[in-house]
Structure formats: structure tokens, C-alpha cells
């Protein structure tokens, strides 16, 4: 499933990005098969990292000459991650099937990261997704439920206040 800035660009205002993030549901042996099938230009980082919120496996793949980074994250057992993955949507990108989270799940996740990593760009992405999607198109009960779980209701209220003027002609 495509995550990160590619998913917020899909539903919001596009911003420059040079990395693509994917959440994968893979067995260890599938990882090895995936890495060995990559083209030579793709450099797999020998060091495995960890995702900040749930602590799951994270693998970086660089394409140095472009330059472009691909980050792979393992699907965790975190209830929100599981819900987001189950609700994912199949979409077409460059004539290929791809999976994306719903706009509600992008908002929930970006608010969670904004709280954990204190990255202002995540908050800006949330406002942009809300602005472009419009108030009526979003499932606010679902968003509020997860924000209450994550302790991000206050940030949600702040983002909603910033997005509200953008809804006037949605």
C-alpha cells in the first residue's frame, strides 16, 4: 500500500517529494525475493531500521542517480495500521493497479506522525487533504474515533479550523 507524501498528494495539494513509502504485508522469505528481483540501479540499504510509531521493520532502497528513495515498512499489528490496511482502496497509477489508504486514514496517520515526529509538513498535508476533499466527503466520525485513540483530537480541531475557509467552494 502506498503511504507518505504520495498518498497525501493523491488527496491533497501536491508537494515536491523524492521518496515513496510503502507498507507491505510480507513474509521474511518474500522480502528476499523482492530484493533480488530489483533492477541494478536500486541499492538496498544493508542496515534495517525501525518505524517510529509502531517499531516495525523498515528497509530503505536508494536509487542514487535520480536521486530517489523508497522506504518499505512492514504492516504492524497496531489496531490503526490494521484498520487502515483493511480499508485500502485499489486505484490505477500509470496503468498499474496500486493500493492506497482512504483520505480519512491519511488524515489520521499524518496527525499521529505530526504529534510523534513534530513535523509541520504532516500537519500541512492534513489541512491540504481536508481542503481538497471538502467537508462533506469525509467520514468525520471515523476520523474522530481514531484521533481520540491517538490523543490527536486537539490537532484535528486545529487542522479543521485551518481547512474550513478552503471548503467554501468545495
Amino acid at each position, binding site marked *: 500500500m502506498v*503511504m*507518505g*507524501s*504520495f498518498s497525501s*498528494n*493523491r*488527496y*491533497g*495539494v*501536491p*508537494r*515536491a*517529494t*523524492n521518496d515513496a*513509502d*510503502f*507498507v507491505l504485508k510480507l513474509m521474511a522469505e518474500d522480502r528476499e525475493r523482492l530484493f533480488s528481483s530489483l533492477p541494478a540501479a536500486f541499492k538496498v540499504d544493508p*542496515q534495517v*531500521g*525501525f*518505524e*517510529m*510509531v509502531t517499531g516495525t521493520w*523498515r528497509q530503505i532502497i536508494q536509487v*542514487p542517480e535520480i*536521486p*530517489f*528513495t523508497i*522506504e518499505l*515498512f512492514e504492516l504492524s499489528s497496531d489496531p490503526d495500521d490494521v484498520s487502515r490496511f483493511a480499508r485500502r482502496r485499489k*486505484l*490505477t*497509477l*500509470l496503468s498499474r493497479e496500486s493500493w492506497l489508504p482512504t483520505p480519512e486514514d491519511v488524515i489520521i496517520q499524518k496527525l499521529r*506522525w505530526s504529534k*510523534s*515526529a513534530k513535523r509541520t509538513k504532516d500537519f500541512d498535508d492534513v489541512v*491540504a487533504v481536508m*481542503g*481538497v476533499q471538502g467537508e462533506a466527503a469525509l467520514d468525520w466520525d471515523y476520523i474522530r474515533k481514531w484521533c481520540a485513540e491517538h490523543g490527536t483530537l486537539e490537532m484535528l480541531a486545529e487542522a479543521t479550523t485551518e481547512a474550513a*475557509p*478552503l471548503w*467554501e*467552494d*468545495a
Partner: protein
Amino acid sequence: MDPRIVSDAHFAGLAKVRQARMMSGEERMLAGPRLFAGVCERMKEGLRDERPEADEEEIHQLLLQRLARLKKLESGRHAIP
């Protein structure tokens, strides 16, 4: 703050959102790397100005070094998607 600045900021935000609504979801997704390619071109122009003696390969390597430094500043070993 001067209310005219607040008003300008509001309309600038609205203009971006309106433009994004006119694009398809696929166009918005593909705009991210295209915008980044534009950023790289501007950075290369700055590097050429700084280092007029450097050839294109050196400029490319300098660009990669600066991007790596920026990335390092932005995130540590622990990351989020």
C-alpha cells in the same frame, strides 16, 4: 497582523486548493516527483553559479551530497512512512 496579509494568505491557499481539485488523483500523485525534479534543477543552477569550473558530473555529485545532508537533517534512523 495586517488584515490584508491574512486575506492574501487565505486566497493563496484557496488558489492552491482549487488548482489541486482541477487535477486528477493520478496527476496529483505524479506531480510530487516532478516538483522535486524542478527543485533539483534550481539547486543545480545555484551550484553552477557557486562552482563555475565544475562540469555536469561534479554538479550532479554536489547536488546528491546536499540532498543527502538535507535528508539527514530531516530524519534519523527511526522514521515514519
